[in-house]
């Protein structure tokens, strides 16, 4: 990006919007206990979901665990990421429990050096997608409740043993999903004035603010090792606002920006390094993008034909190996073929100096908007078509408790009509395609300044292939079955 295009800070017209300057809201977010305040309601909801999942109705549409997890949480999460930023991580209920536990158990260990990357979380991300299909988590309140419990226990174990935010940075699959998606969010936690940071002596945003008398840290700095003046974009930022609270100069805000710009550039990022050197983050972007299609593919009619055919070919009746092959195709073979071919074409046509693998890594980030569009289309569909179902499920749960506060359940309340939601889905997919084309072209301009169009064409083709596949998926008849191999 041309430095001259960065707006000057002294021009009031060009100053970005700062969420922290919104009257009332800014004051609330600056309050030291803003995070627990936001986390507490979500913790209560999580507990209710666990209890209802374990002891409530076994039918998914009647249970709060499945309705909230697989309809409302996923839909709201993506819409908030699209319209604002990574505010779910800010209000993460798991971290509230961890924080309370840390009053009792002080972590002693540093996260192992060999695991200081995204490979473990990529594997866990794939594992969750796999378990979702294999155990039909969407249809089981009991397993959904156990998934939430497992999450709480894992947080307690990981952050009980290891210092800082090891779970968030290196383990949490939801967090990694949010980090990748938030590269396309319009808001970013960022310093307002770099000059203030240059003259800062204490660096409280990373070291934490210390009490002058006891020298103990009273407000912690960034636990994810993001040093604000050198932080670029939203990757690895949980919006926890520790830096906002620690900064003695009130120089950190939640600023607006053009979504996706951080994917275009490749500066040295604090706590991350160079995107182009991070094969693990590129792998995360691949799972994010291709996993979006895979997750939707698991819910349409053709998947059963494919599974049946594979089962007959391999003479297996168990779903796991067949599902494993489908996952390997979607998350390994397909990306390697598509991205390898595109990178090879760019090398041949675009005259870039990079080797094949670094080139693939670099351009993989250009596909993130397409993946985000597909997640939005898929989860947006479930959220919007089942928008009102939360009301009868809550009515029914209260009734079972003998508290008819909201009256008899109105099971006919469902959501928006599919024909309207389909238009919104197509809009999300078009938005994703446009974003991928813009980012890919930006990368081509930087990498192959002499022949940007020739370098861009192969990646545009990959984006179009993914978009076409997404559109095809959206028009397939939905078929939700727990018995995939049944015929």
């Amino acid at each position, binding site marked *: 990006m041309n430095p001259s295009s960065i707006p000057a800070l002294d021009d009031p017209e060009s100053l970005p919007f700062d969420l922290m300057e919104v009257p009332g809201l800014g004051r609330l977010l600056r309050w030291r206990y803003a995070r627990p305040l936001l986390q507490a309601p979500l913790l209560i909801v999580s507990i209710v979901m666990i209890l209802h999942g374990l002891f409530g109705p076994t039918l998914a549409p009647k249970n709060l665990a499945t309705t909230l997890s697989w309809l409302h949480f996923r839909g709201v999460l993506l819409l908030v990421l699209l319209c604002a930023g990574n505010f779910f991580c800010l209000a993460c209920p798991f971290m509230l429990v961890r924080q309370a536990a840390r009053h009792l158990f002080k972590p002693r260990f540093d996260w192992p050096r060999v695991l200081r990357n995204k490979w473990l979380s990529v594997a866990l991300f794939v594992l969750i997608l796999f378990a979702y299909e294999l155990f039909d988590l969407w249809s089981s309140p009991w397993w959904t409740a156990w998934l939430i419990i497992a999450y709480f226990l894992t947080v307690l174990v990981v952050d009980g043993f290891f210092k800082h935010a090891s779970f968030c940075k290196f383990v949490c699959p939801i967090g990694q999903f949010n980090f990748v998606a938030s590269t396309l969010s319009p808001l970013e936690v960022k310093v307002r004035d770099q000059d203030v940071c240059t003259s800062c002596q204490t660096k409280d945003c990373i070291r934490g603010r210390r009490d002058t008398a006891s020298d103990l840290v009273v407000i912690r700095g960034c636990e994810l090792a993001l040093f604000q003046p050198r932080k670029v974009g939203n990757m690895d930022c949980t919006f926890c606002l520790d830096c906002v609270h620690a900064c003695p100069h009130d120089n950190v805000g939640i600023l607006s920006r053009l979504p996706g710009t951080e994917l275009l550039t490749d500066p040295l990022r604090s706590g991350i390094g160079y995107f182009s050197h991070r094969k693990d983050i590129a792998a995360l972007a691949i799972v994010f993008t291709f996993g979006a299609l895979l997750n939707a593919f698991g819910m349409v009619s053709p998947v059963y034909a494919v599974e049946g055919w594979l089962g007959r070919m391999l003479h297996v009746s168990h779903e796991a190996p067949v599902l494993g092959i489908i996952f390997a195709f979607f998350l390994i073979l397909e990306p390697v073929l598509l991205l390898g071919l595109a990178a090879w074409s760019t090398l041949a046509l675009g005259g870039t100096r990079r080797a094949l693998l670094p080139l693939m890594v670099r351009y993989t980030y250009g596909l993130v908007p397409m993946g985000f569009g597909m997640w939005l289309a898929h989860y947006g569909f479930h959220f919007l*078509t089942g928008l009102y179902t939360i009301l009868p499920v809550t009515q029914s749960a209260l009734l079972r408790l003998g508290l008819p506060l909201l009256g008899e359940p109105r099971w006919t309340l*469902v959501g928006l009509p599919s024909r309207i939601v389909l238009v919104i889905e197509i809009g999300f997919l078009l938005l994703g395609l446009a974003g991928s084309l813009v980012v890919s072209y930006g990368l081509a301009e930087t990498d192959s300044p002499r022949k940007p169009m020739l370098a861009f064409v192969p990646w545009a083709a990959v984006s179009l292939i993914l978009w076409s596949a997404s559109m095809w998926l959206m028009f397939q008849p939905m078929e*939700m*079955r727990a*018995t995939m191999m049944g015929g």
Partner: protein
Amino acid sequence: MAFTCRRSRRPARPLPKESRKLLVCVCTATLLLAHCSKPASSSSEVTIEHEISPEPARVGPVVITLRLADSVAKAITGAHIMLEGDMSHAGMAPVFGEAKEIAPGRYQASLTLEMPGDWVILLHVTMPGGQKLERQIDVKGVRPN
């Protein structure tokens, strides 16, 4: 082939006391929660047999025939049966129907299954004496038309 156990020269460092406490707490919580099992379906002296047509079920109207009998296999007449069809995924529109008694103890209802996949049909039965009971019929793999 002989396997040897390689011993580290350094003695293993025991876990700090707090970490051991944490492990104990987590294990205890897991065991306690694992004790929570799926609620068993309630048993009843009423038997309900069902038939669905077409078999296997396809998207569109299906006819459900129910046969209600008591513990000595005597047909139960005069029951009121409401049917509710739900998909196994949350957020899908349920379908409703009411069964009519077509012969003593035999009831029939029609439901329109609007989507392929797994369906669950809930029977809300009100017995002649006012006693209420609920039963669930799993209709797996409803096929597209």
